[in-house]
């Protein structure tokens, strides 16, 4: 057996109770290997997912399902640098994914 994380889908259920991703521009901060990204990305218009750890971003890109390649972009960058290079009022939804600590 390999590791299984949240096969009960508790996290996406809680997420979808609070946000409707349909057609939304999403920024995910602290995306890691994309574990949460895959759960909502098919609903969003597009997803920018960032993480400061290169290894995580490499894994996320490697794990990317084919059907999401046109709408998900992963960046190896810290949030401060990303924010400094980004325009105001860009995203409909920002997810702080286990990263505010």
């Amino acid at each position: 057996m390999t590791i299984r994380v949240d096969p009960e889908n508790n996290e996406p259920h809680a997420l979808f109770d609070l946000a409707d991703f349909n057609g939304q521009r999403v920024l995910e901060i602290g995306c890691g290997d994309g574990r949460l990204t895959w759960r909502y990305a098919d609903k969003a218009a597009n997803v920018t997912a960032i993480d400061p750890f290169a290894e995580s971003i490499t894994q996320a890109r490697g794990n990317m399902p084919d059907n999401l390649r046109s709408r998900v972009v992963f960046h190896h960058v810290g949030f401060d640098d990303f924010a400094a290079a980004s325009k105001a009022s860009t995203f409909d939804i920002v997810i702080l994914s286990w990263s505010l600590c």
Partner: protein
Amino acid sequence: MVHALEKIQRLLKPNGCLIDIHPVRKAPLIKIYRGSDLLFAESDPGYDYDDGLRHADDALNEVIQSGLFLVEGKSEFELVTYASSAPELRDYWAKYGAFDDSPKDETVTARQNDVYAKANEIMQDAAGAEITYYERARITRLMPNARG
């Protein structure tokens, strides 16, 4: 952290929302089940980030109290990770710890060794058992407040 939340407010459209997910301030549990029988349950001795979580809670409270964000909803959920062996579970979490370059507390490491060794013994004597890692998290939806 408040500084990061201020930057997030700038990036959000006026009708957008911030979804914050972070663990509650409680040590995750390592449990072993065989079927519905609980064979083992111990807190993870590696829970050494309570200060970080307290700062996260404080930062959220600060931006809510200052009027930068309004809370629109929140709930809690359990994130459960399943593994077939204690070493597999430990290796999985070590992968995340590898990003943390802060000095390791030897006492914590010794207690982790002890807990995972006990878990490993139980797993070896209990065919068909499954080891799990229970972590409780809070999810909050916040709306940027134009008056903030």
